[in-house]
């Protein structure tokens, strides 16, 4: 817990600004190669991503120093990238190493190079002040590459402000209405939840005891306990870590076998791994994966879960796109909050403090 040192944010900005001094996922590790550069915009910065000959991932501003042609359309040549237009070459620090038709290199020829950390199967980039880029502050997503967990995920290109995705994940009451055929059930909006927070994190905990497992969870229980019938205790523990990573500890266990008290041995446990990278004020890269801690060797289950969650998240994507359109179509209407938004509102307050520290407004520029 932390003491409040700035006035609380009361109104919720509809188009929320994003901190720059933060690690954001730019890509899955396999997307960044030594064969050709990848173009991706992270927190408003267009980047060209590629790998050096030693395998290190590199992120340079995606505009040549000369006439701003996108380097991402160029070639990777060993430890250098070559501009597709006039052949200027740059090393991983962004220094120009070769210019056409002259014997020297202009000393001011440089493109910004951004700090990169590869962790948890992702390439993370820091587009803010490089002197503040501490690799120890990469959000914890340990389940992604732990031998005790198995699973896979995808990327959703979401046509909405990143905060709408965070709102969506911080309150799972919507499952009852958006995902009624898979994970939704009436008990979701009936169960109580608890919200706690620290200076960079928020946790929302919800337990539903002695209920019927919805279709998605019944299938998972039967993967682990063939032929399973009966009631379950279900949990959803949402862990937010600033600026935009949300891990949701989810699962069900045979009712009354002690899961709420800590014994999950009679259940199945998954971690929904989500990390959102704002692209622009109104578009986001949403990287997700579903990791499980049972039947780790089954590629079939990995594929089934990935496809299942793909279907569920497709329903969210549609809703969020429609919500963003409605927001833009109603510029003179404000947001109001419900009791269920407490988690999302704590997220906004943490982000608002990060933005204040950078001297940025909470509302993104038009």
């Amino acid at each position: 817990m932390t003491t409040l040192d700035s006035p609380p944010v009361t109104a919720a900005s509809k188009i929320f600004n994003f901190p720059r001094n933060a690690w954001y996922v730019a890509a899955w590790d396999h997307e960044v190669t030594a064969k050709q550069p990848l173009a991706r915009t992270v927190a408003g910065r267009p980047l060209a991503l590629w790998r050096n000959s030693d395998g290190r991932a590199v992120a340079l501003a995606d505009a040549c120093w000369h006439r701003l042609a996108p380097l991402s359309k160029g070639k990777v040549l060993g430890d250098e990238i070559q501009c597709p237009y006039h052949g200027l070459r740059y090393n991983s620090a962004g220094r120009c190493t070769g210019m056409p038709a002259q014997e020297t290199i202009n000393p001011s020829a440089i493109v910004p190079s951004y700090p990169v950390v590869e962790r948890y199967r992702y390439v993370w980039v820091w587009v803010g002040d490089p002197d503040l880029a501490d690799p120890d502050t990469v959000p914890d997503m340990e389940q992604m590459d732990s031998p005790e967990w198995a699973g896979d995920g995808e990327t959703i290109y979401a046509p909405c402000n990143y905060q709408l995705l965070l709102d969506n994940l911080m309150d799972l009451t919507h499952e009852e209405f958006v995902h009624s055929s898979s994970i939704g059930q009436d008990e979701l909006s009936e169960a109580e939840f608890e919200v706690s927070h620290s200076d960079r994190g928020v946790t929302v905990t919800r337990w539903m005891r002695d209920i019927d497992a919805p279709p998605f969870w019944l299938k998972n229980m039967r993967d682990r306990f063939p032929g399973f019938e009966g009631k379950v205790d279900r949990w959803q523990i949402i862990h937010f870590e600033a600026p935009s990573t949300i891990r949701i500890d989810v699962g069900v266990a045979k009712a009354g076998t002690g899961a709420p008290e800590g014994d999950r041995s009679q259940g199945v446990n998954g971690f929904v791994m989500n990390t959102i990278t704002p692209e622009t004020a109104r578009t986001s890269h949403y990287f997700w994966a579903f990791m499980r801690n049972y039947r780790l060797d089954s590629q079939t289950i990995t594929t089934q879960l990935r496809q299942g969650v793909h279907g569920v998240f497709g329903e969210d994507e549609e809703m969020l796109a429609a919500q963003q359109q409605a927001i833009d179509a109603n510029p003179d209407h404000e947001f109001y909050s419900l009791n269920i938004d407490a988690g999302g509102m704590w997220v906004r307050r943490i982000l608002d403090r990060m933005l204040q520290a950078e001297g940025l407004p909470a509302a993104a520029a038009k």
Partner: protein
Amino acid sequence: MAVNTQTWWQQGRVAECDELAEGVRRIVLCPDRPVHAAPGTHVDLRLDLDGHVRKRSYSVVRSEDGGRRLTISVQLAPSSRGGSRHMHGLCVGDVVEMTGPVQSFPLGVGADRYVLVAGGIGITALVAMADTLRRRGADYTLVLAGRSRRVMAYLDHLVYTHGDRVRVFVDDEDVRLDVESLVGEIAGSPGAPRTEMYMCGPIRLMDAIRRSWMAHELPEPNLRFETFGSSGAWAAEDFVVHLPQLDRSVRVGKDSSMLDALEDAGVDVMWDCRKGECGICQVKVLDVDGRIDHRDVFLSQQQKEAYTSLCLCVARAARGESEPGSADPAAVTLHLP
């Protein structure tokens, strides 16, 4: 690293000015539209010099309060192009036309070691870098070279702040900077390929370092420098430019650049950076009476020695030390189609 090359003009008010070292004036400017100036940035000032508007570049020594106070320091150059005399005449309350911070000399991140080399007033470009490296806890060395302690700005402050990371070389104490041993020490260290050098100073010093850097086969991109084209092999002299195609000759005063003199004389020439970096104003040399003092960083050493082309924005013709007291000014004949 952020690279900001956008140029926009604003007004800046002189908030403080005082004598920092002999012939060096510290000027604190308060710009209209403050933006924090990162290490390595400079501001351009538009100065009215004898009825001609001239642009001059000054490194930002310190950026305080989000760029609301930008400190620059200007050395009075006896053979200056007029800019430093004008700057030394500024008083508190005066208003200047200035750009926001322009970045063409950014400090990198992630090098194993940083060596900053300042010759004389060149230290102004490196003070903020040294402070940043100290804050980062980076491995760095600050090399300060000057003619005399009296004229070396920030010397005591830097020695106090950076302690044994500073190495001081003073000509009149006969403790001279030996470029070969400085670069050789870097080349012989295990971190050599990941050592970056940032230098700013007289072009003769920078040329010597560049030659030594290349001779030791250190990576060229790791040698970073900034020059505003304001120093040469010889002091600026008056000289003459002959333009046979135009059937004209133009006299260049020691306070003026060749490019400025040609433009003042109504000769239409193309240029861009005006500091000897880009090569846009490169022209062919047909004949030289005297020496060419190139002062640019666009031409290679061989190209400079060939005397076949020069950059109009910074190059000068000179008699140099070899022909002292020669009655006729040096002259250069250019092919200007």
